């Protein structure tokens, strides 16, 4: 096969975060037809939850949105949201993939994105995209600016589905007859010659970290919660405030939350914790910020400079052990310092930088694809290049392979595409 014939190739990309987007766009540029499968109703991955990204403090939406638009406008890319891979058969050059596509109940062609359907919906619930800091309806768009700009109905919460009620309030509010309760979940069969796995990662469930006092209430927050609090399109429109509405006069960021449990360093937390110093000091210049770290891991040519810029704005404390307990309206921190002394500190707000873990369903997916999973549960083979999965025709990109920053994820997406295109041009011989 020649390179030009890769135009006839269909490729499946699983996961539409930055790595999946990059892989899809590059494959489409090469001439391939791409199925970009995403289980959420929106795409963009974790990146679109951030207001800014280190180390340039670049606006994350401004970075991601043009790429997302490109995906939506590219005829060679079929974005399948609310979809999950259920079955994979075959081998390099000839895979058959079963994808389960959940009904959105909103016709994307008819919907014009006016959001008039939200208001009348009687169901209100915490918005997961906003880390439960805001509310949404059962028919919803996860956040302003979410793409695709088409709402979806949460069948686990909509009373039509949960209580079998004949509620048509959203349908009545829609002037465009875009709401279609007759939509059905579908099972689609795709023929593809290659698969790129870009399913990303999750954060470890902070409520499991008993000694760190996280409960989803009170004044202990996760990194993603702070991201949404600072986000200009977030639930507070960028106002950093405590759950009770108070402005914290002191805050502490705790690195390596859950590192003992995972047994590895999640690579990006030191940098984003330093970014949080910028977040906090930018919005709340009078708030004292403490940073509890174990080892400052800021690899790469650019990060030290950022660290040096932040370090004067924050009280950096090295800790060996640390535990957290609520203390009235504040949070009590007891810790053993790097020097071995036992200390205590009270702050209004505590932010955890939780460990990155393989994304939900990774194990199942690995089984389905027949690819290797390392000891930590991330995908990838330990013998070849990081984009190799251990199985021909299937490649790994981004945090699905292990913790990394956006730049490294995007690079690896390129590597996965490079391996695929190269192998495809050789007819997958030797794969």
């Amino acid at each position, binding site marked *: 096969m020649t390179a030009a014939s890769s135009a006839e190739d269909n490729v499946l990309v699983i996961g539409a975060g930055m790595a999946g987007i990059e892989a899809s766009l590059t494959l489409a540029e090469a001439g391939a037809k791409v199925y970009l499968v995403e289980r959420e109703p929106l795409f963009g991955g974790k990146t679109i939850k951030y207001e800014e990204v280190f180390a340039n403090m670049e*606006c994350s939406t*401004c970075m991601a949105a043009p790429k997302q638009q490109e995906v939506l406008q590219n005829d060679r890319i079929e974005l399948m949201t609310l979809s999950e891979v259920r079955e994979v058969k075959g081998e390099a050059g000839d895979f058959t993939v079963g994808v389960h596509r959940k009904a959105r109940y909103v016709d994307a062609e008819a919907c014009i994105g006016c959001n008039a359907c939200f208001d009348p919906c009687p169901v209100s619930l915490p918005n997961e995209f906003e880390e439960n800091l805001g509310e949404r309806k059962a028919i919803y768009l996860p956040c302003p600016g979410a793409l695709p700009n088409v709402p979806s109905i949460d069948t686990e919460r909509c009373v039509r589905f949960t209580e079998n009620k004949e509620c048509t309030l959203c349908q009545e509010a829609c002037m465009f007859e875009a709401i279609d309760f007759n939509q059905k979940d579908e099972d689609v069969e795709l023929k593809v010659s290659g698969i790129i796995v870009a399913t990303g990662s999750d954060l470890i469930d902070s409520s499991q970290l008993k000694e760190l006092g996280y409960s989803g209430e009170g004044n202990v927050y996760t990194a993603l919660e702070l991201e949404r609090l600072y986000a*200009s399109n977030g639930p507070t429109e960028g106002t950093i405030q405590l759950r009770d509405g108070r402005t914290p006069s002191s805050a502490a960021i705790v690195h390596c939350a859950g590192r003992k449990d995972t047994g590895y360093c999640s690579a990006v937390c030191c940098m984003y914790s330093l970014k949080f110093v910028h977040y906090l000091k930018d919005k709340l210049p009078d708030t004292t910020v403490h940073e509890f770290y174990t080892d400052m891991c800021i690899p790469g040519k650019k990060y030290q400079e950022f660290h040096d810029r932040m370090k004067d704005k924050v009280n950096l404390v090295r800790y060996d052990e640390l535990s957290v307990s609520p203390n009235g309206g504040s949070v009590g921190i007891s810790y053993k310092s790097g020097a071995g002394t036992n200390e205590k500190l009270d702050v209004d707000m505590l932010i955890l930088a939780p460990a990155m873990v393989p994304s939900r369903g990774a194990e199942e997916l690995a089984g389905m694809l027949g690819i290797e999973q390392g000891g930590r549960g991330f995908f990838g083979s330990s013998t070849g290049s990081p984009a190799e999965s251990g199985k021909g025709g299937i490649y790994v990109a981004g945090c699905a392979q292990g913790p990394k920053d956006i730049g490294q994820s995007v690079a690896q997406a390129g590597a996965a595409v490079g391996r695929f295109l190269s192998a495809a041009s050789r007819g997958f011989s030797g794969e």
Partner: protein
Amino acid sequence: MGEEFKPRIVAFLCNWCSYAGADVAGGSKLEMPPTLTPIKVMCSSRVDPVMVTLAFLRGADGVLIAGCHPGDCHYDKGNYYARRRFAVLKTIFETLDLEPERLRLSWVSASEGQRYAEVVREFSAKIAELGPNPRRRQPAGIKES
């Protein structure tokens, strides 16, 4: 001056950040004074100082240039050049006492709908305070003295 003053502001918005920010403000239904009409350009660096001058001379009560925050430019460094050109223009206006407050440069990112609305509100209030562009007042020859 019988008629109520309705400011007219020309806003040059960069396609990637500020125009998108204005759309997000719209999507969030943020109320804004009806003073401003956008002109989309691909990058704030496309905004030619002569064009801004012309807007002013053609009677614009205010001219807003909005682009990506420094470091965020979709074209790498365009907004830094835009900033220098704007600074020169503003200095010319200052030196000649041409009401430089009518010119504004603001950075608005694609997610900052709220900020965009604030910029529009603030600038509109400022312009309302300044009153009409002197070009729209009586010509120099017949002012009372």
